[in-house]
C-alpha cells in the first residue's frame, strides 16, 4: 500500500531543531558571542552590511551567527529584516573628502597631499598561516596605538579625483544637481536603461564574487579598452547627516566607516566630449576594498554605452550585469530547484515518452525501407 510521503509541519519543525543543533556544534566549546563576531570577524560583518544594504553591526553579527557563517544567507537575513523597517527619509550625501582617514592610497601619483596612508591592510602580509593564532592571547599583539600615532594622519585630505577634475581632466558628473531626487533600487522596479544611481546601488548590493569576476574579465580584455588606474582608495569614518522636516537643517546622526574607490579610465573623446579620464566609482560600508575596486571597474564598463564606446562583453552589458548580480535573488532561484517539480516533470515525461516511442517507430520503419533497398 502506497502512502504519500510528503513533508508536513512536523518535518519542518524537526529540520529547524536539527539546524539549531548543528549551528551550536559541540557543546563543550563555548558559544560565540555576538561581540566576538563584531570585533573579530569585522570584515565578514562589513560584507554582510554592504550587500545587505543596512548599516547595523549588531544585526549583521547576529545574522552571521544565525547563518553559521554562511555570508550569503546572512545577507539574506539582513535584507529581509530591512524590508520591514519604517523609512524616515534620506540622509544628506556623505562627504568622503572630510573622512576621518584610516587608510588611503593612490597608485596614480607617487605622492599626494595628505600622503599615502597604508593603514590596516593585508596587502603586504605574507600569506603564511599564523599558528600562534591557534592559542588565544598568544596571537594577540599588544596595542599598537603608541607606535602608530593618529596625529600623523590629517583629516581633511582632498580626494585625488578632485585634484584631477580641477584640471579639467576628469568627467564632472559629481557636479550634478544635489537636490535631484534619487531613485531607490529597493523600492522601485529596475527598468532599463537604468540610471547610473540605480547601477551603483545595484553594484553595491551585488555579490562580491560576481562583481570581482566581472572586473577581472575586464582587466583580461573582455571589455576594457585600456588599463585603468587606481586614482584612490580610502577607508575611514564619515559623518551621516539628516534633515528632519520639522527642523529644516541637517543634524549629525552618527559616523559610519566606508570604503571609497575611484578608478581613472582613459577616454579619448568622441564627438563633443573632450578627451579626459572617466571615473569608475565604488563605495561600501566598512572595509571592503576588493569589492569597492571591482565595483569601480564594473561601473566604468557599464558607462560604455553612454560614452559612445562599443560594448560587446558581459561586464559592459547593463542588463546582464544588473539582473544577475544579486546573490539573494540568484541563490533563491538556483536553490528553488530543490522545491518539488514533479508535476512539471510528469508533463515532460509524458511528452518525452511519446517522442521516444515515435522515434523508435520511425527508425524501425526507416530500417525496413533500407532493408528492402538492400534486397
Amino acid at each position, binding site marked *: 500500500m502506497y502512502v*504519500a510521503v510528503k*513533508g508536513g*509541519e512536523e518535518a519542518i519543525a524537526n529540520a529547524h531543531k536539527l539546524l539549531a543543533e548543528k549551528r551550536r556544534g559541540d557543546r563543550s566549546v563555548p558559544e560565540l558571542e555576538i561581540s566576538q563576531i563584531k570585533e573579530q570577524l569585522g570584515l565578514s560583518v562589513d560584507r554582510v552590511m554592504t550587500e545587505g544594504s543596512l548599516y547595523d553591526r549588531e544585526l549583521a553579527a547576529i545574522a552571521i551567527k544565525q547563518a553559521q557563517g554562511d555570508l550569503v544567507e546572512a545577507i539574506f537575513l539582513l535584507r529581509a529584516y530591512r524590508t*520591514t523597517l519604517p523609512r524616515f527619509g534620506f540622509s544628506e550625501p556623505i562627504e568622503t573628502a572630510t573622512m576621518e582617514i584610516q587608510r588611503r592610497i593612490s597608485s596614480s601619483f607617487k605622492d599626494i597631499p595628505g600622503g599615502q596612508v597604508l593603514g590596516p591592510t593585508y596587502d603586504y602580509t605574507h600569506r603564511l598561516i599564523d599558528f600562534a593564532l591557534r592559542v588565544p592571547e598568544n596571537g594577540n599583539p599588544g596595542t599598537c596605538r603608541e607606535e602608530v600615532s593618529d596625529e600623523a594622519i590629517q583629516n581633511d585630505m582632498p580626494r585625488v579625483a578632485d585634484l584631477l577634475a580641477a584640471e579639467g581632466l576628469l568627467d564632472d558628473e559629481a557636479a550634478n544637481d544635489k537636490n535631484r531626487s534619487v531613485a531607490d533600487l*529597493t523600492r522601485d522596479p529596475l527598468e532599463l536603461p537604468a540610471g547610473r544611481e540605480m547601477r551603483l546601488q545595484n553594484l553595491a548590493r551585488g555579490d562580491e564574487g560576481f562583481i570581482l569576476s566581472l572586473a577581472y574579465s575586464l582587466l583580461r580584455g573582455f571589455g576594457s579598452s585600456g588599463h585603468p588606474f587606481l586614482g584612490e582608495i580610502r577607508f575611514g569614518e564619515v559623518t551621516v547627516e539628516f534633515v528632519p522636516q520639522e527642523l529644516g537643517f541637517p543634524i549629525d546622526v552618527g559616523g559610519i566607516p566606508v570604503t571609497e574607490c575611484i578608478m581613472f579610465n582613459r577616454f579619448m573623446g568622441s564627438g563633443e566630449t573632450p578627451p579626459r579620464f572617466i571615473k569608475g566609482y565604488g563605495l561600501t560600508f566598512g572595509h571592503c576594498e576588493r569589492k569597492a575596486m571591482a565595483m569601480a571597474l564594473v561601473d566604468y564598463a557599464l558607462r560604455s554605452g553612454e560614452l559612445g564606446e562599443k560594448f560587446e562583453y558581459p561586464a559592459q552589458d547593463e*542588463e546582464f550585469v544588473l539582473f544577475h548580480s544579486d546573490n539573494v535573488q540568484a541563490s533563491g532561484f538556483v536553490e528553488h530547484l530543490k522545491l518539488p517539480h514533479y508535476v512539471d516533470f510528469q508533463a515532460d515525461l509524458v511528452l518525452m515518452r511519446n517522442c521516444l*516511442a515515435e522515434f523508435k517507430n520511425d527508425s524501425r520503419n526507416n530500417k525496413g525501407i533500407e532493408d528492402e533497398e538492400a534486397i
Partner: protein
Amino acid sequence: MKKQFNRQSETGGGRSSVMEGYNFAYLDEQTKRMIRRTILKAVAIPGYQVPFGSREMPLPYGWGTGGIQITASLIGSEDILKVIDQGADDTTNAVSIRRFFSRTAGALTTTRTREATIIQTRHRIPETHLTKDQIIVYQVPIPEPLRFIEPRAKEVCRMHALKEYGIMFVKLYEDISRHGRIAKAFDYPVLVNDRYVMSPSPIPKFDNPKMDRMPALQLFGAGREKRIYAVPPYTKVKSLDFEDYPFEVERWPHCCALCGSGNSYLDEIIMDDRGSKMFICSDTNHCNERVARGHKGNQEEPVEKAQISIGTGARKCA
C-alpha cells in the same frame, strides 16, 4: 485629541499585528498600497505584466515571494486561505507558506478548495472548479513568456507593446517541424483577451483550459522578476496553437490508484527498481474528497510499464 489623527504613512499596523514586532501580514502599509495599486492596473490590463517594487521577503526568491506579496496585500480576517504546491496541500513549501500567513496575519486556512476564498498555488490549478468571488494567486518564477526566445527585457517589452508575437509562433512552428508537436508540456503560453501573450506560470498544459473564462479572479506574482499580472473573471484565455496542430492536453490511460478518478492530473510514483509504477492524483484535496465519498482506485495493481500518451479518449475509471 491628538491621538485620533493617524496619518496614513505612519501606520505600520503594529496594533493589528499577530506576530510581535512585525506588521499585519508582514508588509508595511506603504508597500501594500504600492502592491494594491499594481494589482488594480494588472486587472485593468489583462495579461500585461505590471512592474512593481517587489520587496525582499523572509522566504527565498523563487520560492513564492511574488505570490506571497499579493496574498499579503489581500488577506484579512474574513478570508480562508489554501496553499498548494504541485497540487498538494502538504508539500513542505505549501506548509511553510501557510504557516507564514497564520503567524503574520492570523489567517484561517483550509485544504478544501471549495471553502477557500484565496488559493495560493505553485504549478497547479485545482481540479475542483473555482467559483466566482474566489481568488487564485499563482507563484511565478519567470513571468516573461518570450524570455527563452529573446532574453533581452527591452526587446520583449517592445514586442508586447506592438503585439508583435511572430517569434513565438516561429518557435512553436519549429517545434512542430522538428518534433512533430509543440514541445512545451508546462508553462505553455496563452493569449489573454486577444491582446497579450502571457505565461500561465509552470502549470502543466493540462491545466491551461481551466484558465479560459474562469469565474475566479486570477492573480500572478513574480517577486524576483518584480512583475504582477492578472486575468479577470470570465476572460478569454487561449493556448497558442495552429489550425492543423490544435492544442491538446496530456491524457493517461490509467486512473488514480487511490480514488479512481479518470479526469485528474496524475503524479507518477515509482514503486520499486523494476519499473513498476503507480499513478495518483496530484490534487490531494480532490483525491481525498473522492475517497471520502467512497470512490476507490485499484491500488493493489501497480502499472507494470507506463503507457502514457496524448490522446482524446476518455479513461474508463471506477
